[in-house]
């Protein structure tokens, strides 16, 4: 069993190594990139499954990279929640890479294809690195790789809007990474170490909390930008809207989730209980406004992918608000929401990609009545929409249920109203799309065939997963429940 200990680091190193290998092998074989990336992703999936088994049986464990103990070396901290995230990353990553084989051939021109796969592998490797790292500076570096590769992936298609969106995303991203660095500096100056558990211990002895608060606040603001929560969400609609479909699936599914996961780490791991009540109340208010506004903007958007991006803003708001309830069901809700959002939203983006791949329609009113001519894709698309709209029997319902329960238990009527209204509005725009796709008569007489099997399979798997976790949420609880209890243990 000792080899399993190395798996987390390998999950970081292997994708990066393969990416570099692709660039080196580029001169001889052109189309090796897709095969290699699929293999690496399969490796990641298998290793995350192994890790899951180990963590479930023996609980979380610590791994010192290059054998130096924490205050000096870098420590990798694997607990149930990070394994849960790894699983998510592996699944979504594998699926979007399989999906992107056909899509990329059509969208990007020939030379760029291997670079696309390299960037995707970097993205996934860095996300894994970010999730498992136990050291803030290490987290910063992987955060950097993560955002660099996502900027370039957004701007890869090369048309004007994508570039603009990429640049805006870049500037926001750079500012957030600088905030992390600054925050890191403050925390280091006061605690002397960069390791999560060490910091948590030292913070308890600190008398004056102002420095550590500013440091932690800067970190949180950085993650707000990353997770596109309300006031700083301006870059997301264009970035995810204009990026190629598999990329926006990855971004919406994982990268935003990482933002929330980072927030959870900062709030629960490093600095539990450092915050005055007023800040938490202010922040919850901000996020609830975000939920409602995101849904309202989604209500009026015409371009399908931008609409889905808008809905990501409000959906991620759901996950973020769960974090700030500091209660058992709140965290359960936000974890489930991450799962739901990863699967359902990537299914939606891949579905939209399939439509664009086949017909080139981007606007909703061009897509009237497409449900009849592409029944299977639109069927899976509808399942994804149902999960976003938190219809019962989908895992969206389970997450909204827990979030609402947490809010009501603590008597936070403001956030209860926001969650309910957000749910209602998300139901509205989902059903608006469904009515537009299925029930309206198409005006243009363009002949449309069903999407190819290679695209349908990933879509089907994602749709199946949303339904599966909706009907049998116990499967998800096995991982989440003990993990949430662990985190809450830190809080005490």
């Amino acid at each position, binding site marked *: 069993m000792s080899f399993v200990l190395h798996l987390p680091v390998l999950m970081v190193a292997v994708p990066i190594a393969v990416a570099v290998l692709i660039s080196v092998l580029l001169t001889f074989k052109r189309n090796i990139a897709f095969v290699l990336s699929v293999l690496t992703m399969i490796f990641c999936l298998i290793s995350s499954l192994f890790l899951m088994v180990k963590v479930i049986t023996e609980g979380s464990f610590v791994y010192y990279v290059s054998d130096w103990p924490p205050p000096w070396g870098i420590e990798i901290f694997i607990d149930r929640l990070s394994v849960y995230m790894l699983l998510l990353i592996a699944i979504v990553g594998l699926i979007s890479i399989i999906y992107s084989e056909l899509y990329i051939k059509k969208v990007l021109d020939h030379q760029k294809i291997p670079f696309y796969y390299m960037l995707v592998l970097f993205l996934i490797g860095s996300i894994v690195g970010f999730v498992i790292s136990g050291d803030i*500076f290490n987290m910063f570096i992987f955060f950097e790789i993560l955002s*660099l590769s996502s900027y370039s992936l957004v701007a890869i298609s090369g048309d004007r809007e994508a570039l603009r969106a990429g640049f805006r995303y870049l500037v926001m991203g750079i500012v957030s990474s600088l905030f992390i660095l600054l925050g890191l500096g403050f925390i280091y*100056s006061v605690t002397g170490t960069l390791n999560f558990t060490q910091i948590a211990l030292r913070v308890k002895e600190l008398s004056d909390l102002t420095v550590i608060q500013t440091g932690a606040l800067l970190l949180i603001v950085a993650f707000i930008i990353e997770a596109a929560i309300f006031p700083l969400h301006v870059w997301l609609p264009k970035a995810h809207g204009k990026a190629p479909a598999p990329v926006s699936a990855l971004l919406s599914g994982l990268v935003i989730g990482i933002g929330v996961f980072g927030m959870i780490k900062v709030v629960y791991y490093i600095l539990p209980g450092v915050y005055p009540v007023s800040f938490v109340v202010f922040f919850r208010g901000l996020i609830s406004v975000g939920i409602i506004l995101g849904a309202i903007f989604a209500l009026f958007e015409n371009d399908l992918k931008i609409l889905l991006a808008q809905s990501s803003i409000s959906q991620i708001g759901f996950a973020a608000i769960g974090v700030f309830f500091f209660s058992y069901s709140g965290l359960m809700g936000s974890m489930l929401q991450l799962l739901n959002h990863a699967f359902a939203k990537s299914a939606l983006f891949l579905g939209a990609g399939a439509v664009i791949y086949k017909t080139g329609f981007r606007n909703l009113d061009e897509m009237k009545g497409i449900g009849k001519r592409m029944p299977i894709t639109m069927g899976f698309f509808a399942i994804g929409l149902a999960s976003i709209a938190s219809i019962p029997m989908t895992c969206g319902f389970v997450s909204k249920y827990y979030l609402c329960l947490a809010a009501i238990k603590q008597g936070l009527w403001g956030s209860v109203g926001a969650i309910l209204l957000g749910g209602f509005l998300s139901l509205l725009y989902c059903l608006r799309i469904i009515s537009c796709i299925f029930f309206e008569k198409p005006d243009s007489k363009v002949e449309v065939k069903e999407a190819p099997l290679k695209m349908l399979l990933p879509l089907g798997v994602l749709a199946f997963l949303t339904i599966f976790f909706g009907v049998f949420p116990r499967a998800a609880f096995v991982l989440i429940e003990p993990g949430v209890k662990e985190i809450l243990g830190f809080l005490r």
Partner: protein
Amino acid sequence: MLKASFSNLIYVVSMILFLIGFYAVAMRPSLIKKIIGINIMETAIFLFLIGIGNKKGGASPLVVEGIEKYVNPFPQAMVLMALVVGVGTTALALILAVRLFECENGEKR
């Protein structure tokens, strides 16, 4: 407040430099000026980090016989790596800026 901040002059200067950089990013219309603003902010943070590791009368972290007090080497290593990150981000920003410039001026690829 004042006495303490006088002794931490380096930090105060870095904070002000950081805000100047921020102002450039937030206000300047041209992309290149924004990238320059980003660099200013980076340098401000590096100054701040180095300042944290400084020890009065400590020598640079090259171990030589006869000297006991050394400056804390960790922030310097952190700065070195952050520098390379800075290079990466600025390079990507420039790439995008160049590409944007070409697109805006109608130069089809």
